[in-house]
Structure formats: structure tokens, C-alpha cells
């Protein structure tokens, strides 16, 4: 099964790419992580809506919260228990939180 892993972290305490490197190496090695990336901060984010045919843009994320999506990964796991094990090992789980969502497939 494929899962999307959204890493919600407080950008001001983000440990950076070095912190997550061992996790990426392990999950790539186990062929669990199919694709993923760190994301640029919310200050570089644009939110897009269309209302009455008009494109409306907002500088910044959809919701202003302390924790923002700092990265994502697509995982191929045998089941939710494996996805939970993988997410729990991600450094973002310690300070922030990780949302695990199954892809709408089949």
C-alpha cells in the first residue's frame, strides 16, 4: 500500500537536511521511500483559489499555524503498522507531528 507522509514541523526549530539524512538512507535502502522532499518555508508559499472565475492568490500557507508542512514522502508499505514504524523513526515525529495518509488507489 502507498502512503503519503506529511511532516508537520515548526520551521523555526527545523533541524535541516542533515538531521533527516540517516532516515532517508534507511528508508531508501528498504525500498520503502519512493519519493519525497523537504519543502521551502511558508514564506515562499503561494495559496491559489478560484472564486467566480477569478484567480485569487495569497502570500503564505492555507492555514497560519505554528507547525507547517516541512516535507513529504511517498511510502510503499505492507500495511499501516509498517507505515507507523517508518513515520515514528522520522526526526520530525519528535518535535513536530507526522500525518500518514493512504493514497486513494484501486
Amino acid at each position, binding site marked *: 500500500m502507498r502512503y503519503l507522509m506529511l511532516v508537520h514541523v515548526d520551521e523555526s526549530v527545523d533541524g535541516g537536511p542533515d538531521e533527516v539524512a540517516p532516515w532517508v538512507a534507511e528508508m531508501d535502502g528498504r525500498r520503502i521511500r519512493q519519493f519525497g522532499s523537504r519543502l521551502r518555508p511558508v514564506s515562499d508559499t503561494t495559496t491559489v483559489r478560484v472564486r467566480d472565475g477569478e484567480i485569487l492568490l495569497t502570500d503564505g500557507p492555507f492555514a497560519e499555524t505554528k507547525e507547517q508542512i516541512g516535507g513529504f514522502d511517498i511510502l510503499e508499505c505492507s500495511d*499501516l503498522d509498517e507505515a507507523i514504524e517508518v513515520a515514528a523513526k522520522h526526526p520530525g515525529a519528535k518535535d513536530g507531528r507526522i500525518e500518514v495518509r493512504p493514497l486513494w488507489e484501486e
Partner: protein
Amino acid sequence: MGGIAGTVEAAVATAFREEWGRVVATLIRVTGDWDLAEECAQDAFAKALERWPRDGVPVRPGAWLTTAARNRAIDRLRRKATEATKLVEVAAAMPADRSPDRSDESGVRDDRLRLIFTCCHPALRMDARVALTLRTLAGLTTAEIARAFLVSEATMAKRLVRAKQKIKNAGIPYRVPAAHALPDRLNAVLAVLYLLFNEGYAASSGPNLVRHDLCAEAIRLARLLRQLMPDEPEVGGLTALMLFQDARRPARVDEAGEIVPLEHQDRSRWHRGQIDEGRTILADAERQDRPGPYQLQAAIAARHVIATLAIDTDWAAIAALYARLDRMVPSAVVKLNRAVAVAMADGPDAGLAMVDALDASGELTDYHLLPATRADLLRRLGRHFEAAAAYRTALDLAPTDAERRYLARRLAESGRARADV
């Protein structure tokens, strides 16, 4: 004739209680479809009601029912040509000549264990775990579960549907967790059973203090779990704990539905058989020398139920057990109970100091038993004015009518005592 029919009906009823979970658990494993499994199990029991009076009760009712349910599943799947692949899988997974319980790659003896762990998966909401456990494992109807939790049948049905959907869509596996995850996951299972028991023992809301069916189900499931996982002492600890608490049930509420505190309970009305069973189970668990919170709580409950009279209670031992429990799983409620035991062992002053410290910590602000305990200790110290104020605070916070009436009586008594001074 009526006698024979009655006997067969009783046999079906017994089989239902003992075999429902097993039949459903096996059918879920082989079909992967929770609804189909339940429907086919239901059909199998209906068939038993029709056949057993004529053919006699089979030697192994569980195997008969599982086979009947499996055949029903194959029938149903056969009718849906689109599910041809699934049908092949079902037929292959359950050849008629092989016991369904043995085809198991993970070495687990019983499908019911997979079912327990799946129903109690922490990725499900707690209320969904409880409902799912009662429906699929214990065989309660949706209407019965709805009544027990004071929600409408439609609400409960929706809760069950959502839980089953999440299991399917989120990929919650149908198996016993791997060894590294087992301690945590077992704790999650025990928490569901204990919540179920407590929901029945001290109804969190509504007019009835005791909803005994839930207690009985929790104990039955704990006994089953213990049978399936004999090497986990905490399972025995929880089983014993619930047996001890439930044993006191007949004396806990009087004829008028009023609460009788432990010290005033008629101990001859306690279930001796359950107490003895609990003691055997607890001793068994403690022999494994892996203490845990449930074993400690059971040891505390045991100290209460083995005292012939309230005055014989070994409060010093209970206080020491609470201290151990608080070190193992620090909690404000445990500290409050410890304070009560200390008050009994060393006098109300010592207990009151601990309760006041707890009160100052602000950890239990909405918990009615904190002011109720304070009130009780103040009353024993003859400080009736302060006791009355504390009873009033407790009264405002008490969640059930029976508890409110009990506290109101105590408040009235402290008023009279004050007038006597």
C-alpha cells in the same frame, strides 16, 4: 418436545457466546471482509437453530458453525461473479478437511487474537475500538452496544461502519503485532477491556450506576485473552483486578439504588467464587516476576477483598502498593488513592496533607473525588464547616445521580454534625 427444543436453544445460545468471536475472526481472515464475516456468522447461527433440533448438537459446535459460515461465504461470493478471484482465495484458504485455525503463517494459535489486536488498534478512536470489540468479538448487536453507551442505534451503526472503513482503507493489518511492538499494543488492548469494564462498573453518565453486561463482557474477553496469551502477566493482572472489583458489585448499591461505601458494605454478599478465581490468577501472574500496573492494582484490590471486616484491611500494605504504582505510572489519581490509604494507616492528618498538596498542584481540578476525599478527611478531623464546603464542591462535579445523592447525604450529615458542635 418443548424441553428438547429448549435444550437445543440453550446449546445455540451457549455456542453463540463461546463461538461467535471465533467464527467471525476466522471468516475475516479468509474473506478479508468484515461485513461479510458478520453476516455469514449470523446465518450460521440461524442454520444451527434450524438443524440442531433435528440432527442433534454437533460434538464440536465451533467447527460446525465455522464450516457453515464458510460455506455461506462461498455461496454469497459465488453469486457475485465479479468476485471470482476472491472466491478462489476463500476456497483455497479453507479446504473443508482442514481445521481453519491451523493455517497461520505467523504462528498465532487463534484468529481471535488477531481480531482483538485489530479491533483495539490505536489508529482507531477509542470509542470505535470499544464498539468494534463488542460487536465483532463479543457478538453484541449494534442496538445493544448503542444502549450500553447511551447513543442512538444510528450513531453506533455509523461509528462501526467508519471503523471498518478505516481498517480497510488505511491498511490496518489483521494480525498480532510483531514482538517489538507487542508490549505497547497489548497495553492498548488491556486499556480497551478496562475501559469497557469501568464503563459498566461506574457508568460515566446517566441514572444507572452499574451496567453489568459490560462488566461481564470485559471479564469474559479478559479470560479469553489470558487463555490466548498465558505468558503475559499483565493480562492476568487485569483479569484479577476486574474479578475483584466485580465481586463487590452486589454490595455496592443498596435496594434503593444508593451507593454503599466499601467500609459499610455487607461483605457476605461479595462473590467469593470470583475473589478466589482472581487470587489464583493474580498469584499465577505474580509468579512470572514481571510486575506491571494492572498486577499492582489487582494486588491492592486483593488487599481489600481478603479482609473479613473493613477494620481488618491492611492499609499500610495498600499505601505501599500505591507508592509502587505511582513510581511505575505516575498519576494524580493514584496519588489521591495513596493519600486515602495513608490516612487510614497513619491518620487523617497525614492523608489530608497529601490531598492538599495534590489540590495545590491543580492536576485534578475537575475530578469530584478530590474534594469528596478532602471532605471526608476534614469530617473525620471534626472540621465540619470546611468539610461541608468541600462536599458542595464535589457535588457540583459528580457525574452520576447516585454519586450526587451520596454526596448530598454526606453534606446533610456534616451540617447536622456542625449544628451539634
